[in-house]
């Protein structure tokens, strides 16, 4: 992720140490000076996100990374960045919570990332990679989406993704969008009128209402243009699993095992968590007989799945927080029990 950011032209990184993401600032502390960039070990996550606020307003591609407790501290700053419509990348390698929790992998910050976290009506573009290659690729894209939409982007990973090793092809950066000129940058008002980056809107009296409407229009546009999802064997699936990130990767194995046992299982893996890819769920709800949400939390992501499914199909749940993670076998067991229950139910009707 760190190298992808460097490749994509990220030249400012600020962060505060926290496991399980220390590899990122450590790498950046060495790499940034090599490419003429800036690395600052901030005094706190609060300071780090506010350094990002300044660096982004100064025109730099910039990022910060942290893990759950640290991301909680960043929330005020994230709200300001979203309100000021500044681009940046924030990575959260989630760990077990609440509180200090533990340093095992978790997906319990879904609500914080996708539903808000900070104050006010704002949205982050939230990306959930399931492999290091995807993390690498999405990191590059994230900078483009951030610049294109002038919106902060969050990569919502977890402790496993943050600390595992697997081969990654280091691809050169290619912009995926035609990027707008950064006409908001504060670089001194030479030859132009002074610019202001601010989020306080007192005048006119309805100015903040208008700004909120403007933001909501932007969010609607993002929702209509950006939605990424992987579907695996869903076409004929009776039981469709919904999972994201590392959990989806484990679930894919379970789908394979279920298929080998003659159970028609499939998987929907959202890659963007916001915007949430509703369509695959709407279609699957029409064809599948049951859905199963698997997540490393006590049920956050499931709320969006249920909203998309809208009662068209029963949704089962398998998940726990605190550092629990599913194995392929645990998921398979759940699929088998769902398949058995459905067979009994069918018999009951006969």
């Amino acid at each position, binding site marked *: 992720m760190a190298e992808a950011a460097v490749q994509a032209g990220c030249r400012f990184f600020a962060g505060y140490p926290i496991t399980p993401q220390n590899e990122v600032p450590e790498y950046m502390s060495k790499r940034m000076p090599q490419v003429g960039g800036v690395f600052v070990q*901030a*005094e706190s996550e609060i300071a780090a996100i506010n*350094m990002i606020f*300044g*660096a982004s307003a*100064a*025109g730099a591609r910039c990022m910060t990374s942290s893990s759950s407790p640290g991301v909680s501290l960043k929330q005020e700053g994230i709200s300001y960045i979203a309100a000021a419509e500044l681009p940046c990348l924030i990575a959260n390698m989630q760990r077990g919570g609440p509180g200090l929790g533990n340093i095992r992998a978790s997906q319990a910050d879904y609500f914080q990332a996708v539903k808000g976290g900070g104050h006010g009506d704002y949205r982050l573009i939230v990306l959930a990679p399931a492999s290091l290659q995807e993390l690498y690729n999405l990191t590059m894209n994230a900078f483009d989406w951030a610049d294109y939409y002038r919106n902060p982007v969050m990569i919502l990973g977890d402790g496993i993704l943050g600390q595992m090793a697997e081969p990654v092809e280091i691809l050169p950066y290619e912009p995926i969008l035609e990027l707008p000129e950064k006409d908001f940058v504060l670089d001194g008002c030479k030859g132009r009128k*002074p610019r202001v980056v*601010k989020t*306080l809107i007192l005048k006119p009296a309805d100015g903040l209402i208008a700004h909120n409407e403007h933001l909501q229009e932007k969010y609607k546009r993002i929702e209509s243009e950006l939605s990424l999802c992987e579907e695996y064997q869903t076409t004929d699936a009776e039981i469709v699993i919904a999972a994201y990130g590392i959990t989806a990767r484990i679930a894919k194995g379970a789908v394979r095992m279920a298929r080998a046992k003659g159970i028609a299982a499939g998987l929907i893996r959202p890659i963007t968590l916001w915007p949430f890819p509703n369509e695959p769920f709407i279609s699957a709800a029409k064809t599948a007989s049951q859905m199963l949400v698997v997540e490393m939390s006590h049920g956050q992501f499931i709320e969006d799945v249920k909203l998309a499914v809208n009662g068209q199909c029963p949704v089962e749940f398998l998940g726990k927080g605190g550092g629990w993670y599913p194995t392929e076998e645990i998921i398979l067991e759940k699929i088998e029990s769902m398949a058995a229950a459905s067979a009994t139910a069918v018999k009951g009707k006969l």
Partner: protein
Amino acid sequence: MPNLTRTEVLTDAQTHYCPGCGHGIIHRLVAEVIDELGIREKTIGTAPVGCAVLLYDYFNCDIIECAHGRPPAVATGMKRVQPDKIVFTYQGDGDLAAIGTSETIHAANRGENITVIFVNNAIYGMTGGQMAPTTLTGMFSTTSQDGRGEHGEGPPLKVCELLSSLEGVCYLERTAVSTPKDVISAKRAIKKAFQNQIDGKGFSLVEVLSMCPTDWKLSTAKAVDFVNNEMKTAFPLGVYVDRS
């Protein structure tokens, strides 16, 4: 001859400050310095959360408005990305010495090449007169109604003294704007703090003791007396660090 015309660095907008408030004078001094150094077109200011939040309505240069207490962190990001630009923060006592103490100390200790204008009016002006970290011992505020120090509030926090132990700091001076002589001295200090940044010398902070007649519930004349008699005793004026 003192300059009696409006400097180009200030807009024509009428300020929202109360009569007798120190912010207006300090704005004028900062603006004159930016003007005299010829740096308006390469200066980026940060606005605090406090009575000076509308700084951008009054200053004719690029401004970024920050979350409460975070200007030194924002300025760090801003300056590191554009080392050739001039970046200043303008902060009240609540902003700089309560909620933003950590950002202040660490920006100072890193020796960030920025200029900090610290307006100490010993009160939370904007929110209506609550106790500030710099509220004097025995002083009334809406959250220290029996006088500060009676109920475990501790003594006032002295920012220049606190920061003077940091080796990363270039320049610290405490000034005031309660007499003409003080105003002239404050301007000299502010100019030096900007010149240090131009010369790449590092973190410079000028503390300015300032009047808040409204929340002190004093007349404008009595507020000036309060700075001269009470505040200058608790917060002695002078140069605390000069490594320039």
